[in-house]
């Protein structure tokens, strides 16, 4: 994947010459601490105490914010005081879900000295209340202001650190805990400047190391690239995998399936009976289906005015129509059951648009529509449906982009680097956890806070 030019601009010489060098991102390792400590939990919101207790249970170590005029007594036993010189903080969680007036936002400013002490690959997570459930203009404005703060802070943070925003609606402790854990952990390495809403659905992972133990997951487009990585990561987290791809990709599909002791199912997602055959396969082999990842997708780029019918049709058929049709079978009463999880692959092109990708952009925006509406339809059945929208991910596909274009795409984000297929897979692996029951109808971008799109 590395060519000569890439080698040159990432060399020590280039570094000396002032070419900005990306920080290696901290990625999830099963069994490792969720993040580096200590963690500063602050804010006036109702969840701060619970979050502090939870971080303590995880053994992360708590921090106390530096205070003007040092020497103040330490209110929490065993906590690290950031008053001490050279003391660093691994993560900062601010709960302002109770803020109702713009004046309440001043609390954010007290966090600034701690942000200065954030470690490389550090984390900032701001907790708010979903403005969609509020009506008072000052209240809505205050809560909405948090989003602007987080997105801007994300662009200021350096050295692999990220800022993300969790919005709660109702008694959402389980969902909040799950989302905060995701944002603190290496699973969210390439997720930056994002907003995730959590509802009041309850759920917890029973096995921390293998949260998907006992689950059967079906991944389409699994023969290579991001799909193969999704299959591998879900398997690592305990799921049994049915790897699906077109018959022509069978050789690499077999390799993927055998590596993780899953099964290979050769079918074209656009065939009318694809959904029924997937259900039949998983039910007969494993007696159940818990997780579906609609990853299969194609690009057939051409400027709109030169776009022929086959490019347009094939992209819309594979990327959008096939999911709608498969879901008719998968979401039947005898399909995905209580606790079921579905994730669709959207794209930054479906949010921000992309030159030469009118067909692809349309299909991926369509996927987002499909996800939000389907999520509402199946919420009562305990099934969640979410989208993950990758930005610039280092794959065979992006390796073929000409050097200059690729280097711009790679660096035009807050983390100043491309993501890995694994980063996309980790976000999906979180969304399909039992503990993520409160997250549905969301679009999580895995784009390093790309300058493109929202």
């Amino acid at each position: 994947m590395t060519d000569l030019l890439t080698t040159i601009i990432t060399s020590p010489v280039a570094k000396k010459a002032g070419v900005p060098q990306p920080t290696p991102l901290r990625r999830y390792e099963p069994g490792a601490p969720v993040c580096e400590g200590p963690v500063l939990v602050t804010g006036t919101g109702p969840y701060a105490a619970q979050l502090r207790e939870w971080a303590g249970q995880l053994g992360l170590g708590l921090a106390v914010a530096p205070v003007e005029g040092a020497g103040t007594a330490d209110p929490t036993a065993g906590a690290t005081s950031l008053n001490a010189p050279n003391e660093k903080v691994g993560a900062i969680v601010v709960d302002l879900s109770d803020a109702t007036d713009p004046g309440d936002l001043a609390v954010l400013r007290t966090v600034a000295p701690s942000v200065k002490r954030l470690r490389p690959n550090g984390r900032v997570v701001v907790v708010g209340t979903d403005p969609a459930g509020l009506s008072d203009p000052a209240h809505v404005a205050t809560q909405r202001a948090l989003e602007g703060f987080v997105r801007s802070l994300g662009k200021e943070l350096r050295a692999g650190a990220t800022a993300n925003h969790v919005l709660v609606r109702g008694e959402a402790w389980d969902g909040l805990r799950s989302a905060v854990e995701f944002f603190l952990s290496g699973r969210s390495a390439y997720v930056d400047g994002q907003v995730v809403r959590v509802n009041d659905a309850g759920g917890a992972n029973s096995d921390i190391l293998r949260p998907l133990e006992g689950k059967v997951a079906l991944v389409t487009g699994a023969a290579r690239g991001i799909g193969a990585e999704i299959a591998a990561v879900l398997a690592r987290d305990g799921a049994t995998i049915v790897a699906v791809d077109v018959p022509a990709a069978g050789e690499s599909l077999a390799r993927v399936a055998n590596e993780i002791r899953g099964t290979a199912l050769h079918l074209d997602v656009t065939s009318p009976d694809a959904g029924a055959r997937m259900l039949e396969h998983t039910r007969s082999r494993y007696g159940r289906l818990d997780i579906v990842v609609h990853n299969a997708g194609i690009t057939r780029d051409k400027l709109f005015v030169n776009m022929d019918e086959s490019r347009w049709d094939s992209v819309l058929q594979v990327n959008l129509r096939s999911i709608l049709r498969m879901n008719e079978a998968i979401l039947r009463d005898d399909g995905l059951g209580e606790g079921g999880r579905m994730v669709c692959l959207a794209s930054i092109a479906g949010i921000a648009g992309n030159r030469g990708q009118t067909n692809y952009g349309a299909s991926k925006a369509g996927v987002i529509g499909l996800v939000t509406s389907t999520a509402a339809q199946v919420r009562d059945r305990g099934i969640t449906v979410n989208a993950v929208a990758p930005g610039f991910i280092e794959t065979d596909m992006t390796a073929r982009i000409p050097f200059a274009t690729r280097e711009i795409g790679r660096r035009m984000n807050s983390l100043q680097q491309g993501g890995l297929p694994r980063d996309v897979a980790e976000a999906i692996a979180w969304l399909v956890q039992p503990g993520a029951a409160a997250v549905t109808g969301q679009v999580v971008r895995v784009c390093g806070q790309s300058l493109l799109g929202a």
Partner: protein
Amino acid sequence: MPQTSPRPPRRAAILGGNRIPFARAQGAYAKASNQDLLTATLDGLVARFGLAGERMGEVAAGAVLKHSRDFNLTRECVLGSRLDPHTPAYDVQQACGTGLEAAILVSNKIALGQIECGVAGGTDTASDAPIAVSEGLRETLLELNRAKSLPDRLKALTGLRPGDVLPAIPQNVEPRTGLSMGEHMALTTTEWGITRQEQDELAAASHQHLAAAYERGFFDDLVTPYLGLTRDDNLRADSTVEKLATLKTVFGKGDGATMTAGNSTPLTDGASAVLLASDEWATAHGLTPLAWLVDAETAAVDYVHGAEGLLMAPAYAVPRLLARNGLTLQDFDLYEIHEAFAATVLTVLKAWDDPTYCRERLGLDAPLGSIDRGRINVTGSSLATGHPFAATGGRIVATLAKLLHEQKQQDPERTVRGLISICAAGGQGVTAILEA
């Protein structure tokens, strides 16, 4: 102590199969070995059925063209595959009957309760063929090895003749007659008066049937692509009798010759594997049997002295198989008759329908009769797929099992039955009955 009582036999289920696309020799698989081909095929089967890390009762497979280093070919393939390395394996070799014979062996062990599951397969490469040293060089080298002193060694070397340095390349020739299989078939073809037109019709149908089967996705769960090949590259979907009629004859002599490269199978590389198991094992693994291998019969003819055609053994095996099972030749929904040559299929069909032949050679009171031609090789056979010798049996077993399963689903109340007939070098023929 009481004697252990024998277990009653049970039926062996065919759960499915996997093969790689067959490639014409010196083509896509030119640089792949038998071990490469069979290992890839096993791994494809493992992926389809989720068998990674699974200990199978046994794997039986083989190759016809075999290097001396491949003395334990199948076991080596198992060790290179994703199967549990505790899976035992052995090699089978019965010329073109290898694949089917392997399936019979595995199914018999399942039927006897000795194993619960097994894989039968075969592989052959005409591209990566073994080349041996000449007999003269080999004898000289062995003599050299036995020699103890320098003079003895020099003496051994004096036995070497210039011609001895030429390598011995394997040939498709019967050792006892010196005739190639095609030349043998040409004798039988002439004897039975099989016309060029009939042969070309059968060849064209084979290609058209195979192409149609690929088009309807029939092979999606039977074939795993390999080295960039997604379909058998011998397949000519646009094959017609008219095109085949323009080819020159290659076997037989003079104006009476009828056999061409179009109505004979080409040298081919490929491998196949079939998953067999007891019904209990299938249920425990969430797998649905496609069909059951109910009986088999192998015959051999004396083509050296007995005035019988080299490839006529199936003509003898089938009536014995039918009699044992109380069936007539017409009691089958589908027939898979290996197309070594188009004329092979046509001859055996004619023989079964010939009162004199059936009486005098097969010892039958009445001829077996004719077969509905629309039930023979309905998804094409070796003329279209090509014929990697030991891989053909596995291809046919898995294909027929799936075809029977499809028919059974249309008519669940009825027993659906298929007949397999495969001729082999050395005057042998392996036949079997599958039911669903």
